[in-house]
C-alpha cells in the first residue's frame, strides 16, 4: 500500500512539475513577444543568430535532405516495382519530403546543432553571471539573448526546409532516373501532378513552428540553468530531448490539422 501511494505521489509530482514547466515556457514566450515589438530591434544580434542557425546549418541539412531523398527513392522503387508503378517514386519522394521529412528532419538536425548550442551558451552565461551582468547594466536579457534566437529559429527553419526539400527531391531523382532507370518524363510529371503548392506551404508553416519550439526550449533550458558545468550539460541534454520530442508530437497534430 505504501509503495502504491509513493508511486502515485511521484507520478503526481512529475505531472505537476511538467505542467509548471510548460507554464514557465509559455510565460517566457509571452515575454519574448512583448520584447519583440519593443524598439529598438537588435538587428545585428538577429543577423548573427540567423547566420548561426541558418547559414551554418546548410551543410548538415543538404546532407540529410539528399540522403533521405535517395533512400526514399530506393525503398519506394522496391515497393512500387511490384505493381509496375515505378513512375510514382518521384511524387512519393516529393510529397514525403515537402510534407513531412523536410521540415521534421531539418528541425531535428537544427535542434541537435543550434538548439543544443543555445542551451549551452545561455546556460554558461547564466552560471558565470553574464546574464545578471546584462540585467545590472539595465539591458533586458530576454531582448538581447532570447528574442534574436527565436526570430532566427522561426525565419531560418522554413528557409532550411526549402533547401532540404529541394535536395531530397534531387537525391530521389539521381537514384530514380540514372541508377534505377525510371522514365525521366514520368518521374518529373508525377511530381508536378501530385505535389500541390499547399503541400509545400504547409510544410514550411510546420518548419516555422518547429523553429519556434527548438529555439524557445533551447533558450528556456539555458536561461534557467543552475549548478555550474554539470548544470550546463544537463540543460543542454534536456533541451535536445524535450525539443525533439515536442517536434515529433506537435508534427502529428499539425499534420492532422493541415492535411
Amino acid at each position: 500500500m505504501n509503495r502504491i501511494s509513493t508511486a502515485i505521489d511521484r507520478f503526481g509530482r512529475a505531472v505537476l512539475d511538467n505542467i509548471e514547466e510548460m507554464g514557465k515556457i509559455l510565460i517566457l514566450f509571452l515575454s519574448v513577444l512583448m520584447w519583440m515589438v519593443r524598439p529598438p530591434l537588435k538587428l545585428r544580434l538577429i543577423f548573427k543568430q540567423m547566420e548561426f542557425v541558418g547559414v551554418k546549418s546548410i551543410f548538415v541539412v543538404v546532407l540529410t535532405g539528399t540522403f533521405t531523398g535517395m533512400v526514399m527513392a530506393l525503398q519506394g522503387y522496391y515497393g512500387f516495382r511490384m505493381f509496375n508503378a515505378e513512375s510514382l517514386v518521384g511524387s512519393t519522394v516529393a510529397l514525403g519530403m515537402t510534407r513531412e521529412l523536410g521540415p521534421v528532419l531539418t528541425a531535428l538536425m537544427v535542434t541537435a546543432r543550434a538548439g543544443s548550442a543555445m542551451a549551452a551558451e545561455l546556460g554558461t552565461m547564466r552560471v558565470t553571471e553574464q546574464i545578471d551582468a546584462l540585467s545590472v547594466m539595465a539591458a533586458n536579457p530576454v531582448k538581447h539573448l532570447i528574442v534574436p534566437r527565436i526570430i532566427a529559429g522561426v525565419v531560418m527553419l522554413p528557409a532550411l526546409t526549402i533547401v532540404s526539400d529541394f535536395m531530397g527531391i534531387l537525391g530521389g531523382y539521381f537514384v530514380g532516373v540514372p541508377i534505377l532507370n525510371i522514365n525521366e518524363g514520368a518521374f518529373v510529371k508525377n511530381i508536378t501532378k501530385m505535389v500541390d503548392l499547399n503541400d509545400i506551404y504547409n510544410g514550411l508553416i510546420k518548419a516555422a513552428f518547429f523553429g519556434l519550439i527548438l529555439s524557445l526550449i533551447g533558450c528556456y533550458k539555458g536561461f534557467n540553468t543552475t549548478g555550474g558545468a554539470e548544470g550546463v550539460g544537463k540543460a543542454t541534454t534536456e533541451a535536445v530531448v524535450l525539443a525533439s520530442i515536442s517536434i515529433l508530437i506537435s508534427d502529428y497534430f499539425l499534420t492532422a490539422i493541415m492535411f
Partner: protein
Amino acid sequence: MIKLVDVHKSFGRQKVLGGINLDIEDGKTTVIIGGSGGGKSVLLKHIIGLLRPDRGQVLVDGVDIASLNDRDLNEVRKKFGMLFQEAALFDSMNVMENIAFPLREHTGKKNAEIRQIVADRLKAVGLSGIEEKMPSELSGGMRKRVGLARAIALHPQIVLFDEPTTGLDPVMTEAINELIMETQRNFNLTCVVISHDVQSIFKVGHRIAMLYEGRIVEYGTAEEIHHSSNPVLRQFLSGSLEGPISVM
C-alpha cells in the same frame, strides 16, 4: 543613499535574510562581511534589484526598488555599476566591446567618443592597450580590472563589488584594493563591497557591517569594528574555531 529596511528573503525553507536594516552612506565605501554562504551575495543582489525581498524595502535615493516594474528598475540601475566575483565579462565580445556595451546601450555617443571613453577607463584601471583582447586571453586579475572598467563606464554613482579579491594572489589582491580605493576617490563613488578577506576589509572600508545568520549584527567605522567586543565579529576577524560561528 541606499537604505535597507527590514529585508527578509528565503529560498524554499531556507531563510537567508531575516530582517536586514542598513544605511549605506553616500560617497563612502561600505564593506559587508560574513561567512561563506551567509547571504552576502544575496544581500548585494537585493541592492541592485536582481532579487526582490519577500518582505521589507530596498530604498535607493528614497525609491523602493523592490516595488518597481522592469522599466523603472532599469532607470534606477543606470546609477549602478557592479563588479561580479568572476567579472562576468561577455565572452563573445572583446574587451573594447565589453566596456562599450553600457555606453552603446544607454547613450547616443559616436563610435570615436566611445573608443575614447573605453581607453580612458582602461587607463584608469591600469590596462591601456588591451581593447582587442578576448576575455579568455586575460588573467583573473586582469578580468576583474576590465570588469571594473565596464562597471564605471557610464560614470555611475554607486558601484557594487562582489568579493573582488577572492581567488587572487596577495599582490594582485593589494592591487585590486588600491584600485577600488582610487576609483572610489576619483569618481566620488558610493561603494558596497562584500568580502571575507580580513586584510582587504580594513584597507578599503570606511564603514563595515557584519552579516551573521541573516542579520547585521555589527555596523560601524573600521576603527569601531576593529575594537568591537562582539563575539561573532571577534571570532570572524581572528579566524578562530572557537566561538558562536559554527563551522559545520
